[in-house]
């Protein structure tokens, strides 16, 4: 039977249905996941309505900064995904299909703008809900959310049209050696560099520098240069911290699988992999705290934010290592770990970091009983 329709869109559909149905190819699993996702979004919106009267007074004076951060983040997201999917459709397994360049371009656009479209719709849906949650500030709520929606739209368009210097297919991988020179002596030193290298691969300074220029242009008139620099600096550092955490997760998983047939102990592997990324997380989190304080956030609140972030970073890294080693009940473990941290953050904030470290050690010392 002749298949009609866009083959690239069909491939995306199969890919997603396979993800949702899992290894057992179960439709029930797919539907339950979709329902759970929808439920989670609805619950998150309701939770937001409960906190909205508290959050709004903090957000209102910083509408410009929030808008900028949203626009910049969406431009980076869209640009990276455009580069990634263009490369995929030029050289991946579907590159030889007889489809026009126009169709390819359209599918790249669909994949690059998917998140922006989702956020745009979510923001518009949230406007009436949040306006009802705080009727006295309905006008401010609408202004904030609509400005954010516009920022999502403008930011993703900016990311889409951001020029690339070289076409992706012309990109040649680097050949010289990276990290410290290899000596021939047995050493786990290269593992510490792996996370940094992965971060550099994903956090492309060239893209960031090109985004900062238009971001400066969209700043409103009358804003102080110090404030603008602090907002931009904070945005770049936050992005760096997020990408570094993502890179740590990626590297922890790959490395644990790669070294799985060796007798290396999990604690030794975790230390070799994690000390440098965690040190960098600490240094750049401190820099973010200084910028937050410069922006007028109280030092205690900035310190608590930093503490929370560092706890999350260390927990996520060790959970991924534990997952790669085949620990079971991982979701329960994650739920317990983050639940405990949330409780501590509410009642005994000073114990968050020690607790995160203790939980990390517990994750690493547990023995795998069955592979997921």
């Amino acid at each position, binding site marked *: 039977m002749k298949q009609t329709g866009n083959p690239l869109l069909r491939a995306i559909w199969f890919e997603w249905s396979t993800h949702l149905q899992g*290894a*057992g190819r179960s439709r029930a699993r797919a539907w339950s996941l979709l329902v759970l996702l929808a439920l989670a979004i609805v619950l998150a919106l309701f939770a937001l309505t409960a906190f909205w009267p508290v959050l709004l007074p903090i957000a209102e004076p910083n509408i410009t900064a929030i808008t900028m951060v949203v626009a910049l983040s969406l431009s980076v997201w869209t640009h990276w995904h455009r580069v990634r999917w263009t490369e995929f459709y030029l050289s991946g397994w579907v590159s030889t299909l007889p489809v026009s360049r126009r169709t390819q371009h359209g599918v790249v656009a669909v994949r690059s703008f998917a998140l922006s479209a989702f956020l745009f719709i979510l923001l518009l849906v949230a406007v009436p809900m949040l306006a009802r949650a705080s009727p006295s500030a309905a006008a401010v709520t609408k202004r904030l959310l609509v400005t954010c929606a516009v920022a999502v739209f403008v930011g993703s368009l900016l990311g889409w049209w951001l020029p690339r210097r070289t076409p992706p297919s012309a990109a040649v*991988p*680097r*050949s*010289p*050696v*990276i*990290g410290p*020179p*290899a*000596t*021939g*002596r*047995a*050493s*786990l*030193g*290269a*593992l510490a*560099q*792996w996370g940094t*290298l*992965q971060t550099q*691969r994903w956090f492309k300074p060239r893209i960031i520098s090109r985004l900062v220029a238009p971001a400066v242009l969209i700043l409103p008139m009358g804003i102080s240069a110090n404030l603008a620099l602090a907002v931009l600096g904070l945005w770049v550092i936050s992005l760096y911290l997020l990408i570094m955490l993502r890179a740590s997760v990626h590297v922890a998983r*790959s*490395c644990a*699988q*790669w*070294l*799985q*047939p*060796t*007798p*290396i*102990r999990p604690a030794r*592997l975790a230390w070799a992999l994690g000390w440098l990324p965690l040190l960098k997380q600490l240094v750049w989190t401190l820099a973010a705290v200084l910028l937050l304080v410069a922006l007028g956030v109280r030092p205690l609140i900035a310190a608590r934010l930093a503490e929370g972030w560092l706890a999350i970073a260390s927990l996520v890294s060790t959970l991924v290592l534990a997952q790669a080693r*085949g620990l079971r009940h991982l979701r329960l473990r994650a739920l317990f770990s983050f639940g405990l941290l949330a409780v501590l953050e509410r009642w005994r904030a000073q114990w968050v970091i020690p607790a995160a470290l203790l939980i990390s050690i517990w994750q690493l010392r547990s023995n*795998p*009983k*069955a*592979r997921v």
Partner: protein
Amino acid sequence: MNNVALKIQALKVGYGARTVLEGINLSVARGEWFALLGPNGSGKTTLLRAIAGQLIPASGTVLIGGHSIQEVPEQAKRLLGFAHPPERLPALLSGRQCLEVYAAAHELAEIGMPVLALAERFRLTSALDCAVETYSLGMRQKLCALLALVNDPALIILDEAFNGLDPASALILKQELAIRVASERCAVVLATHALDIVLGHATRAALLLEGELIRAWSAPELSALRAGAPNALEVALADAAATAAA
């Protein structure tokens, strides 16, 4: 010294609810080159991953040099040399860094001279300081083989390790493995579709079909096949598969 490099008893492995291997019993001694044959999807890679401890079995035991990979993985893995598929290598590290990390993971002081000498024979030395992402498939296969030999293992597990290797490098690797096997330093378990390697080097072979070892060939049987018609092993495999299907 325990002469049995690998002993598998009543092994059952699956992915989720799907059972892939069942009732696997196998023993491979040092000085043996065991070839694992079977069509695509028959469970060869799953079996090798279970031996290496990458998959935890639903039931049964895997002993490497007498140590259970489930109960005492550290002792078992000290005796294991496992060649990863090339796509598992860390793309951003250099080949030499990979060797250093593997040597450190095995608690060695340095990368052994035999491994560096083999790298030289592979003509890989000049590329060892380049990032793995710049390597071709063949170069990655060579690095995977070197990593499997870093700790002078008692059991070497290779999954299609000759794919992508140029004939000269394939010959060097076969010779290296043959020397190690002949001196009874180790046992080799190789999953392959290359029947010439089975006839040329293997001392035992077995056919895995739909998750079960349905036929094994001893050393004398393989010798008889070598002496027979050029396609004797192919015919024997087809016969065994047909018998199992019947």
